[in-house]
């Protein structure tokens, strides 16, 4: 379980040492509030949400700097796409550089297995907003797999 949490935290924080801190603090919080976990089968999702919130708290506390994906997208060349490993390396870099508002729901969905509705609840967003963010996250990544970006969707992002 801990490697899963660490991987999730690492992709969120983009820093190994920070991820270690986040997971350690999250496990402490989880231990203190273990009585609130009613369903043992939901432990993984419960821990992942604690990690996400701990990262959000740390982010607010330290005002961690974010990286704009747009510049990274523009700087990538088609030559990198020729090699399969280069593809993966470039895509991993692109995911790292996704703005947090896109990276976070994508990680919750792909690594956490959360549904759109669950992500909306966790992030205090409308389902439509989550759909839009997930669409835009993947649309930004299309370029890094040799695909043209799709036209943007017009769904509005509104808090519930």
């Amino acid at each position, binding site marked *: 379980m801990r490697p899963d949490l660490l991987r999730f935290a*690492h992709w969120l924080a983009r820093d*190994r040492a920070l991820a270690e801190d986040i997971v350690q603090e999250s496990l402490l919080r989880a231990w203190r509030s273990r009585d609130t976990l009613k369903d043992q089968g939901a432990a993984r999702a419960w821990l992942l949400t604690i990690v996400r919130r701990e990262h959000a708290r740390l982010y607010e506390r330290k005002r961690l700097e974010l990286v704009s994906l747009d510049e990274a997208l523009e700087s990538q060349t088609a030559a990198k796409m020729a090699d399969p490993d280069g*593809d*993966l390396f470039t895509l991993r870099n692109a995911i790292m550089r996704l703005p947090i508002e896109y990276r976070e729901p994508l990680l919750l969905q792909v*690594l956490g297995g959360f549904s759109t509705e669950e992500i909306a609840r966790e992030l205090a967003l409308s389902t439509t907003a989550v759909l839009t963010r997930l669409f835009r996250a993947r649309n930004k990544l299309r370029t890094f797999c040799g695909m043209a970006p799709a036209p943007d*969707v017009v769904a509005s992002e509104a808090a519930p």
Partner: protein
Amino acid sequence: MSCEQARLTIGADPEGSAPELERHLQECESCRQFRAEMRTLEAHIRRALERPPESARTARFTWRPLALAASVLLAMVAVLAVWVLRPSDTLAREVVAHVQEEPESWLARQNVDAQSIDEALRGAGVKLDITSDRISYAQSCWFRDHYVPHLVVQTAQGPATVLILRNQHVRTRRSFHEGGMSGVIVPAPQGSIAVLTRGGADTAAVAAQMQQDVRWLPDAS
């Protein structure tokens, strides 16, 4: 369902198969194509996220059987010789292997901006007193259990790769030729600096410049 709604739904969850979406796809070739592309992308994303960022690239060569065989041989060498020779030789080899795993770094020609350089330096406990007009590549790479700045500096003789290796100490300057690259690892106040080239860049000059330009922060973890 409109094409725009279909694409939003597909983009948000490429593996989804809601009945309304499936009905739309039966009649819309372009949206079917879009879903096929997004499912391909999704497979790539899942593969990309299988490992934590960066760490997998160095793990490939760290534990390969050859290294184990080498360690057995080294155990047979006199203890003093092992301590004197092994760290630097291994370091040079790993530096070369790391650079070989990022071939795209040599291709970059556009200068990176100061923010990208700061991002590459973050977590490594160093600052760089240099303008960005010579640096065409800047990444923070996972190397020997630490994040290290990986830079490519453009020189008049061609590009030179620089790895700023906090925590990797060498006693003396060491030149090497391996994997089609030549380079040098020089000692620094709190680690070392590796400079490599595939062409004619003057690695000694770049290393000397870096020894001046890199500031080692005292309180880095």
